[in-house]
């Protein structure tokens, strides 16, 4: 499901399926969920019946009645088509996922230590299975023994294998993925039908889609407006009779269908489905539409420093020698001590020494060098080489090593170390034969472009809070550099939870990401909790979204997609209501210009005849749904502007545009209708 594999919505298979679905969706029990379109369907049925009656009686004006009836049906079908199109890509993806659910077998470990081979669907929660290289993992679970590389591309679309191992935050495995190397023992954590893959299929397919709170509210508004227009049209007939200008049912139904908000009514569910779909295209699974909406409302983003704001690894940026030591000497020692250090920090030291002091990395053979690895006891690493004993480590560890317990390092060294700490860096002291040489300045590197994104978020009124285990001094420095609004230093899971609750008590909505089991309570408490797919089962269950790419920065995109969803709804609602102005000017003069020829003065579009005017309005009303399907599916273009600026912009486009566009559209259709001799 990565970008490369994603399916275009204009895929011919999707369109074919959508066309069939739009007919299937005519079923009145399904239509009733959408009051606006249900009214159109009822109107279509009524005009169809009258049309048959007129046909039987060979009544005059059949051509007009027939066309009106057809276009009313098209209106319903177009709305159904929009919804079916929105569902299309999800359904296609569900089909692909189902293929991943191919029949696999499981090696179940029995209590007596024997292994039996059973079909995967027979597995139950808490069963233990053994999976070896080349086998599919038969169900969701947790690695309880061993370590293996796993190909999860069936779920995430990412072809690079990932490591799964017992204990820690990388223990969760997903059914349907494949072990590439080694052997692991897994405790199954879900019963058949409740697995992650099952859930994923039903989510992308939209099978359990429920209306979101905001969608419900909007539906009430639309239903209310529909009743208002129903009243206006139904009572218009008595007024018309009083005015000696009674109208046919075809005309009255046309007026009603044009006035009720069919544009937004027809596209509303498509917008919702497309919003979920857009998240899926970003490889994020939302467990409910409610979560997507909440994402748009988020006031506070909690972002983990490591991996989200910073590159995740500290990098050496400077060598600061003590007096009497040259920079090159320090750099050389630092490089030597790091040659066997495979951590990103270690590698960055080698790179810095090479780039800044032209010191080439040397290949040291084990017989001439003895590498001392980092241990929790010594908290140092280094090398014994050529009679030299080079060490690097935290200042107190080096102090102990140089002077024995209780001794003090030179004042100059302490000052340098403190200065680096204050500036948010991490100091590493290098010593050669128990003589301190100087300090390596390791720095957190803020990811490129983050400052701009935080500025954009701020412009939209969203506060960013950086969460870090660093001390407050370091945290403050990085926070300043990254441009976040606030930070939480030395954060424990409890602190995080307290912060979320505090924000929520102020009425704010909070979004966060997390992957560890200790993140689970906070993920559950947050309004939007995005769990990393690489994380633990507990975290995935606590959050209301799962990011299959396990990229914490994506939280920002999730917020943007939520906002885009709400904006699209608002824009099309405004557009739909604004459209009515032009429709009145098309239909009302057409209805009454026979009884009152002066009414033609209101025919500002100069539509040719009453019939062509009404027909054009009905055709416009139907076609505008089709025209707007791409917008509904893709969403209104997202911009990070303040609410005031967004409102100004969107009101101009969709409000004013909604008033002007139909005047032009109806006029053009009228010209075409007359040219084709349809009315």
């Amino acid at each position: 499901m990565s970008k490369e594999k994603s399916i275009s919505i204009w895929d011919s298979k999707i369109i074919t399926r959508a066309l069939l679905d739009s007919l299937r969706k005519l079923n009145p029990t399904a239509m009733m969920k959408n009051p606006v379109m249900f009214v159109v369907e009822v109107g279509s049925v009524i005009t169809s019946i009258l049309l048959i009656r007129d046909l039987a009686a060979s009544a005059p004006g059949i051509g007009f009645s027939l066309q009106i009836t057809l276009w009313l049906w098209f209106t319903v079908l177009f709305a159904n088509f929009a919804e079916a199109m929105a569902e299309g890509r999800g359904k296609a993806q569900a089909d692909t996922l189902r293929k991943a659910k191919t029949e696999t077998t499981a090696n179940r470990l029995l209590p007596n230590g024997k292994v039996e081979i059973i079909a995967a669907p027979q597995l139950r929660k808490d069963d233990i299975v053994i999976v070896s290289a080349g086998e599919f993992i038969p169900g969701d679970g947790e690695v309880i023994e061993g370590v293996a590389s796993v190909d999860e591309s069936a779920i995430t679309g990412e072809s690079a294998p990932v490591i799964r191992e017992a204990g820690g935050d990388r223990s969760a495995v997903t059914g349907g993925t494949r072990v590439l190397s080694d052997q692991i023992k897994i405790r199954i954590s879900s019963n058949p039908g409740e697995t992650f893959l099952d859930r994923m299929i039903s989510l992308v397919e939209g099978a359990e889609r429920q209306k979101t709170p905001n969608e419900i509210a909007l539906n009430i508004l639309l239903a209310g407006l529909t009743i208002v227009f129903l009243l206006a049209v139904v009572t218009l007939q008595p007024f018309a009779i009083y005015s000696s200008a009674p109208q046919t049912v075809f005309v009255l139904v046309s007026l009603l269908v044009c006035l009720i908000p069919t544009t937004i009514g027809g596209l509303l569910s498509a917008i919702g489905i497309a919003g979920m779909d857009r998240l899926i295209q970003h490889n994020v699974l939302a467990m409910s539409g409610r979560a997507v909406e909440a994402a748009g409302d988020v006031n506070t983003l909690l972002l983990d420093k490591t991996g989200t704001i910073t590159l995740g690894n500290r990098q050496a940026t400077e060598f600061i020698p003590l007096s009497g030591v040259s920079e090159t000497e320090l750099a050389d020692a630092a490089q030597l001590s790091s040659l066997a250090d495979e951590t990103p920090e270690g590698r960055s030291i080698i790179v810095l020494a090479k780039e800044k002091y032209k010191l080439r990395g040397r290949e040291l053979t084990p017989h001439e060098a003895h590498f001392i690895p980092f241990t929790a006891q010594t908290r140092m690493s280094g090398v014994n080489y050529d009679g030299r004993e080079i060490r690097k480590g935290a200042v107190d560890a080096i102090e102990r090593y140089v002077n024995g317990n209780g001794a003090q390092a030179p004042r100059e060294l302490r000052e340098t170390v403190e200065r680096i700490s204050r500036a948010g860096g991490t100091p590493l002291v290098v010593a050669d034969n128990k003589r301190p040489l100087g300090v390596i300045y390791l720095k957190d590197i803020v990811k490129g472009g983050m400052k701009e994104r935080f500025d954009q978020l701020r412009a939209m009124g969203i506060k960013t809070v950086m969460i870090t285990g660093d001390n407050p001094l370091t945290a403050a420095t990085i926070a300043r550099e990254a441009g976040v609004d606030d930070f939480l230093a030395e954060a424990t899971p409890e602190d995080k939870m307290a912060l979320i609750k505090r924000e929520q008590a102020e009425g704010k909505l909070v979004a966060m990401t997390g992957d560890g089991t200790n993140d689970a309570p906070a993920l559950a408490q947050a309004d939007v909790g995005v769990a990393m797919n690489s994380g633990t089962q507990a975290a995935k269950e606590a959050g209301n979204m799962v990011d299959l790419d396990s990229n914490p920065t994506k939280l920002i995109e999730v917020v943007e997609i939520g906002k885009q969803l709400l904006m699209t709804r608002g824009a099309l609602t405004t557009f739909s209501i604004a459209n009515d102005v032009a429709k009145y000017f098309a239909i009302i003069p057409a209805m009454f210009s026979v009884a009152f020829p002066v009414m033609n003065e209101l025919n500002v579009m100069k539509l040719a005849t009453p019939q062509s005017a009404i027909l054009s309005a009905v055709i416009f009303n139907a076609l505008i749904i089709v025209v707007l399907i791409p917008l509904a599916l893709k969403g209104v273009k997202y911009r990070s502007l303040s609410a005031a600026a967004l409102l100004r912009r969107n009101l101009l486009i969709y409000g004013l545009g909604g008033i002007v566009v139909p005047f032009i559209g109806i006029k053009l259709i009228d010209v075409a209708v007359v040219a084709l001799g349809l009315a």
Partner: protein
Amino acid sequence: MTLNGWLQILLFFALVLAVTKPLGVFMARVFNRERTFLDPLLRPIERLIYRLTGVDETREMRWTEYGAAMLSFSAVSMVALYLLQRLQAWLPFNPQNLANIEPSSAFNTAASFTTNTNWQSYLPETTMSYLTQMAGLTVQNFVSAAGGIALAIAFIRGIAQRKKDTLGNFWVDMTRATLWVLLPFCLVGALALVSQGVVQNLKPYDAVTLLDPQGEVKTQTIAQGPVASQEAIKMWGTNGGGFFNANSAHPFENPTPLSNLLEMFAIFAISAGLTYTLGQMTGSPKHGWAVFGAMALLFFVGVSVAYWAEARGNPMLAGTDQAASALQSGGNMEGKEVRFGIANSALFATATTDASCGAVNSMHDSFTPLGGLVPLANIMLGEVVFGGVGAGMYGVLIYVVLAVFIAGLMVGRTPEYLGKKIEAYDVKMAMLTVLIFPMTILIFTAISSVSPAFGTSQLNNSGPHGLSEMLYAFTSGTGNNGSAFAGISANTNWYNSAIGAAMLLGRFFMIIPMLALAGNLGSKKAVPPSLGTFPVTTPLFATLLVSVIVIVGALTFFPVLSLGPIVEHLLMQAGQTF
């Protein structure tokens, strides 16, 4: 249109603008139960009232209890007023020995005055005794207005407060609205009117000998009564029920251009002040001004159209001199008082229907079709241009909620009104209040228009004008305005009952969902404002609010209006009148 006319309109508006802030601050203090300069005088009276009635002034009410108190108070008021009319012949203060009032008219009048409508299907000076006028009608003028203010304050509290289930105490709000707001203003207002020549007495009617006898008619009866006291509350409380049938066109109700200005000012003053109270109580004075701005815009559009339509006169009288000059007002003077002229008649008609007042100083029936469309449309929009005291405020707030909901999504968040999320329940209640108007107006008018026996037979005019007359009657009733288009004989069983029902529906069926909405908003927590918050303080928001009011109103009523005033206007241009 003349410069002089426009200056008078601007002077009127400047007066309203000038008092908005002081009145708003004063009312916010009154209803927050903070100290005001009137406290030394009024607090003892207030406490006495509570002691006598057993009201616990510290008790807070949930919206249901608040609504129940308001409804039961109105029900008791309505029954009392009905009985008073039915028994007036046997009660004191009836020097003209006026008879008891027959049931359908008494019902209509009781509904009319308890709903702050003051639709009058009777001729007051030949129907209502002084006791009925003073103890019945004037009292209702006070309490129905006070009730409206109380409801508006309850709604504002709902917006302003956080996570609180109660909206205040109805009895306290109503008592304070009466004692601190209405009584002092009316006292001063009545004296000002007396200074201009408005009568205030309990005398029997004068019979005067005509200087110039008209055939058999040698004497004329000059009606008398306690007019000034009722006139003041009629305007300050946006009631509009005249002491005399001619209402504010009668020289004893509205003798001079200055009294006319004072009366028009009184229609808008409290409602304009409430916009500032809204800003003050919600902590966002700019929001109050934005609402004021939206109202002001709608006011100027209305008055401009009405003034223009009336001043340009009747195209069918082309050839006669209709120009304004030193000797004549010019324009369409049919049904207007010479002492007010075109500008002050158009202004009065606009103001009285912007608000739900319903007092008239000219006959709307005689306006040109477009001139008459303005008062009709004003009422149809829900009388939210300053509006009836209190009623205008909660009416416009419903539109604010809708505007925020419709456009609010466009900023990419669940719509928020001053931090309160607008959710399904709120939209449902707002839509219910919006539905009442078209439902009542359109259905009753539709029935009347196709019922020759009891509907169209009462019309004095045919064609589109006849439709406008029926439409106006039900619009005025539902909108609790009370002004009449006239031209329709409405004192019949059908119109008395149907308009009576329309008045009750228009008042109480709006209030219940409105209070439910207020209660629900009040119990919500508020999202603190940020750059992402939907702005409700800007000119853009005021424009949006105006658009929503106009579009919702226009979309609902455009079809029927097109067959009424609009086609009538087009036909008049073509040389046909009705």
